[in-house]
């Protein structure tokens, strides 16, 4: 299980990253891999647009020193033509710069969206191949948040942070070089001021991050309280517990305010401090530059012109801006790395292993011998290619299931099933009864290998299920689960889920068999009715009927049924029951029974308690035995 930390919208803890460099390289793999060409172009575009901006700034010096000042000194009609040419040249560079910026934007859209798409696709592909155990141990909210929040952090990082940082670094370097060329003393002054700004930032950021941690913690507490109380609001009303809740909420809320106030105050003052320090730096440069321009003779290497001063002042502003931007982007990169870490962790989970080599094929009888064939014959066979000599053996699919001394635990330290022995002949009905947590559902999940057993053997038509390809094994087993899950789509599509190439007639036949045809027909759009949000527009009973139809159309030789729940009323349940009964006919069926009526006519009833089969036999035999089954059946162990 992931930690109990609140992973709500705001209350996310920021985990310590073990290897940020490695994660970053892996993200870059997704970016560079398919978009190498794009990335190179983007880099060129960034360089071009930075240089175009810089040449404009430097042009100010030429404008003043080379064009305006000489014109002021030369009497008579000034000649504007050289200036016009120079300005046109600058304009062309500017235009190129703007076009480079545009190209960069467009390219980055493809890179960003493409990378997100590839990650999402890959994540989903990997997820579909994860074993059921993964979904048991990770909350669905956490899994979803990887798809939404974590992948979204990639957008910010790839689209903005990285280009911005490249741009900033390049701007800083080129500006720095230009500053050095213009004036070394002023550059030193600027650097000192930058240092002061960094110290100030470090101070405020330190203070604020401490308070931010505090704020996140308290926000988590407030949100947790809100969630709990809103969920229990009706109970609060019933128990007239409003005032107590209010008092507790006020306490939590006030303490959140205190840390939010402090945390934000430190962040807020950071901006003005840096901005005004930047202004001070600007002023000092102006004063020092002014002195240099006045007092240093033109022959000295420290000599300075007005044009130089004007250009330098602009560079001074341009120099501190990207440094601030880098520090801003840093935060979003840390967030993105944390997001990527979660994405990669999920991608790196070990997928379901499948070493099975026995496959399921269509078969037909030819002179009393089973032969593989292409067409659908309604008859299936296991194709068993012996690994030793490569010889192929065909075995008809019949539905004979044997458990032989099976032990199982979700974690190796804690076994939940012990020494399960069981033999279901083709067409037999085996029922499991027992209390919640006795292991009924677990047994059925072993047959289709949702989980792998620790010890013992499960044989299907005499073949160890480990040798059967998982997909083929599962195709030969039908499942109707207690929690019916339907998919967005029409009713027909949902039934067809069991057999993708089913005709409309087959769909209808399956629905009829499951007793679902009646209510489907009465829906305004019949079989084309759209189901939304897991079939929320249908009643529990109707959804169950659809799930039965879905299993019926797949027509599997072995069925696993987790029966209807107590939330269905008796009359609806009877309809569901009828559907189930029809489905079970002629198939090997494993039933997790909740109602005695289904159990009675079973060929074998297994009573489970704490992971062991403690009784087994037919209904009459078990009643005769007056054991646990008898108690369950009569429900009067203590009352009488």
């Amino acid at each position, binding site marked *: 299980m992931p930690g109990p930390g609140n992973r709500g919208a705001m209350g996310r803890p920021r985990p310590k990253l073990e290897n940020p460099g490695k994660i970053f390289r892996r993200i870059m793999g997704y970016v560079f891999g398919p978009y190498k060409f794009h990335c190179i172009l983007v880099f060129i575009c960034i360089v071009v647009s930075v240089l175009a901006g810089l040449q404009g700034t430097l042009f100010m010096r030429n404008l003043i020193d080379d064009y305006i000042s000489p014109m002021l000194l030369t009497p008579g009609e000034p000649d504007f033509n050289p200036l016009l040419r120079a300005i046109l040249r600058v304009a062309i560079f*500017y235009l190129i710069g703007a076009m480079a910026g545009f190209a960069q934007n467009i390219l980055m859209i493809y890179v960003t969206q493409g990378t997100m798409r590839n990650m999402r696709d890959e994540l989903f592909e990997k997820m579909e191949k994860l074993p059921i155990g993964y979904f048991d141990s990770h909350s669905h909210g956490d899994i979803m948040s990887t798809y939404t929040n974590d992948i979204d952090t990639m957008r910010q990082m790839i689209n903005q942070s990285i280009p911005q940082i490249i741009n900033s670094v390049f701007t800083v370097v080129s500006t720095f070089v230009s500053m050095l060329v213009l004036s070394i003393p002023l550059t030193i002054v600027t650097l000192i001021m930058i240092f002061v700004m960094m110290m100030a930032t470090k101070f405020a950021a330190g203070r604020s991050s401490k308070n931010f941690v505090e704020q996140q913690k308290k926000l988590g507490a407030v949100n947790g309280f809100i969630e709990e109380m809103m969920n*229990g609001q009706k109970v609060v009303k019933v128990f007239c517990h409003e005032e107590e809740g209010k008092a507790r909420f006020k306490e939590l809320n006030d303490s959140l305010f205190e840390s939010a106030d402090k945390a934000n105050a430190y962040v807020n003052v950071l901006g003005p401090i840096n901005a005004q320090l930047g202004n001070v730096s600007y002023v000092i440069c102006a004063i020092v530059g002014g002195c240099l321009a006045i007092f240093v003779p033109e022959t000295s290497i420290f000599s300075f012109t007005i044009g130089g001063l004007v250009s330098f002042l602009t560079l001074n502003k341009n120099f501190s801006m990207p440094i601030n931007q880098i520090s801003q982007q840093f935060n979003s990169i840390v967030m993105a790395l944390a997001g990527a870490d979660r994405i990669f962790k999920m991608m790196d989970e070990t997928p379901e292993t499948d070493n099975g080599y026995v496959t399921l094929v269509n078969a037909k009888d030819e002179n009393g011998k089973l032969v593989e064939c292409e067409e659908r014959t309604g008859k299936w066979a296991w194709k068993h290619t012996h690994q030793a000599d490569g010889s192929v053996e065909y075995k008809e699919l019949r539905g004979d299931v044997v458990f032989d001394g099976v032990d199982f635990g979700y974690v190796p330290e804690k076994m939940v099933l012990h020494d399960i022995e069981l033999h279901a002949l083709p067409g037999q009905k085996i029922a499991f009864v027992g209390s919640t947590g006795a292991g009924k559902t677990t047994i059925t999940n072993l047959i289709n290998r949702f989980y792998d057993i620790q010890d013992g053997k499960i044989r299907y038509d005499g073949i160890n299920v480990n040798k059967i390809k998982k997909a083929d094994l599962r195709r030969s087993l039908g499942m109707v689960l207690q929690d019916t899950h339907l998919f967005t789509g029409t009713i027909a599509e949902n039934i067809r889920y069991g057999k993708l190439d089913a005709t409309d007639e087959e769909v209808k036949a399956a629905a009829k068999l499951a007793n679902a045809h009646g209510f489907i027909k009465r829906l305004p759009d019949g079989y084309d009715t759209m189901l939304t949000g897991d079939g929320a527009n249908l009643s529990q009973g109707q959804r169950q009927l659809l799930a039965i139809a879905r299993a019926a159309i797949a027509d599997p030789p072995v069925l696993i049924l987790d029966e209807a729940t107590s939330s269905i009323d008796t009359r609806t349940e009877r309809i569901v029951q009828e559907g189930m009964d029809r489905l079970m006919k002629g198939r090997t069926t494993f039933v997790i029974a909740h109602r005695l009526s289904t159990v009675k006519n079973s060929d074998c009833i297994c009573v489970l308690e704490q992971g062991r089969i403690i009784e087994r036999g037919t209904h009459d035999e078990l009643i005769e035995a007056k054991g646990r089954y008898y108690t369950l059946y009569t429900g009067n162990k*203590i009352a009488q």
Partner: protein
Amino acid sequence: MVRRILKEVKQYTFASIITPVSMILEVIMELSIPYLMASIIDKGVNAGDMSHILKVGGLMVVAALIGLFGGLMGGRFGAMASAGLAKNLRESMYNHIQTFSFSNIDKFSTSGLVTRLTTDVTNIQNAYQMILRIAVRAPLSMIVALVMAFTINARIASIYLIALVFLAIVLLIIMFTSMGTFKSIFPKYDALNESIQENVSAIRVVKAYVREEQEISKLHKASKNIYNIFVKAEKKISFAFPIMSLTVYACIILISWLGAKMIVQNQLTTGELTSLLAYCMSILMSMMMLMMIFVMVSMSIASMERVSEVLKEEPDIVNPENPVTEVKDGSISFKNVSFSYHKEGGEPILRNINLDIKSGEVIGIMGATGSSKSSLVNLISRLYDVTDGEVLVGGVNVKDYDLETLRNEVSVVLQKNVLFTGSIYDNLRWGNKNATDEECREAARLACADEFISSFPDGYETHIEQGGTNVSGGQKQRLCIARALLKKPKILILDDSTSAVDTATDARIRQAFREAIPGTTKLIIAQRISSIQDADRIIVLDDGEINAFDTHENLLANNEIYREVYESQTGGSRDFDETEVS
């Protein structure tokens, strides 16, 4: 709507005023610097006057420091004002929700209320801070810069004005054309996430039917779709940035050209040219800020709407004037009651209900799902108000009682019940704050909860996790019953509250009730016939109407619905689901 939100600023009004005032100070000081710079260049450097440079330089440092002061104040008070508003909003909403009736709560849904109290408040907090600090700063710095530019040189400054108007129009066009596309993206994006969600929760179905490949290709298709529309939408806004930089560049070039000419003609000085260029930058920066605010604020408008919806909601059940504060006995009568969840024009789900229940009677209620059993009992403690007719408890109309009195005397164990974080004692004492440990244990014993509580290592001090996830369904139900018993009510209503308790324990609970609280009127809703067959009388509800109200024996003899259910549950079709090993 905005006015309703602003009402919550309350004690932070001062902070909310001082913040923009400080920002104004900061802007004016900041923008005076380029102006002074012109003076340094022209009168200082060009004239070779060192003392002037130092004098004006000192002035600039002072300006920067005053600006810093403004900025600090703005930051400090901005944080206080916005965090304060958030605090007040949360508190007002929370307190207001406490006055909501069940139907108010239904209207918003639990998750809706949670989002409003959390995410929406945070959005408003951020937007408010943004507005106080930057929404004042950006337009102001634009205006001040423009004014300064005009005082320096009106001809050149008018270039800015043209550029500004041009940019505003272009950006607005881009924004409006792309807004539609973006709006159409979100439902698609939601649909994509929904289909992922479906796969996560239905993974067993996917795997059982071996449909991984099909689901993957379905997602690839959806994901490609999203990719395409995102690319299309983002391309539209990608024009914004190059157009903006082109405009800046065009301004710089025009100023350089015109400025050079004017300097030569002695209409402008070099220093003034520098200032003009600096103002050009700050004007365009403010423009960008404004865009950003616009996006932020429009995002928070939806949140504001949702929050003010909660604040404006009128609770539809309130205490009457001069309420009755004593419930005489546990008798209940329904007189021609009909009820609908929708106030106007809704199909009533309870019709013509007439009932007379004597104090101390045990009443069973049965009926199919959707036959409005829960709705019927919820009217007794006035969790909902009847649409027509009246409900009397102890001979008095429930609308005349003080709500707290009524609900303390009519104790309901809801179908969807909840335990809260805290010890078992804490949870039980919801029923009665002042209950002693012994009283708590006594109630637990009656509800057959004592035995499993005692088996916990920490006994009654066992910590219950949020939502009661660390106890089983049956244990949770028994704790909820014990909690309701602690109220010592005159009427006890169990709404399908023992469905996860095994039949034997269920029987023991009912027996305990019979012996320990014989005077309490008990209403029991159940799916299991065994839970109600020993009641004094049984109500058979069918599709919102009373089909029959009689004893078990009579119903068995005369009522078809009852007999049908009874037969289906006995004779080998009884229910042994969820039975617990205790």
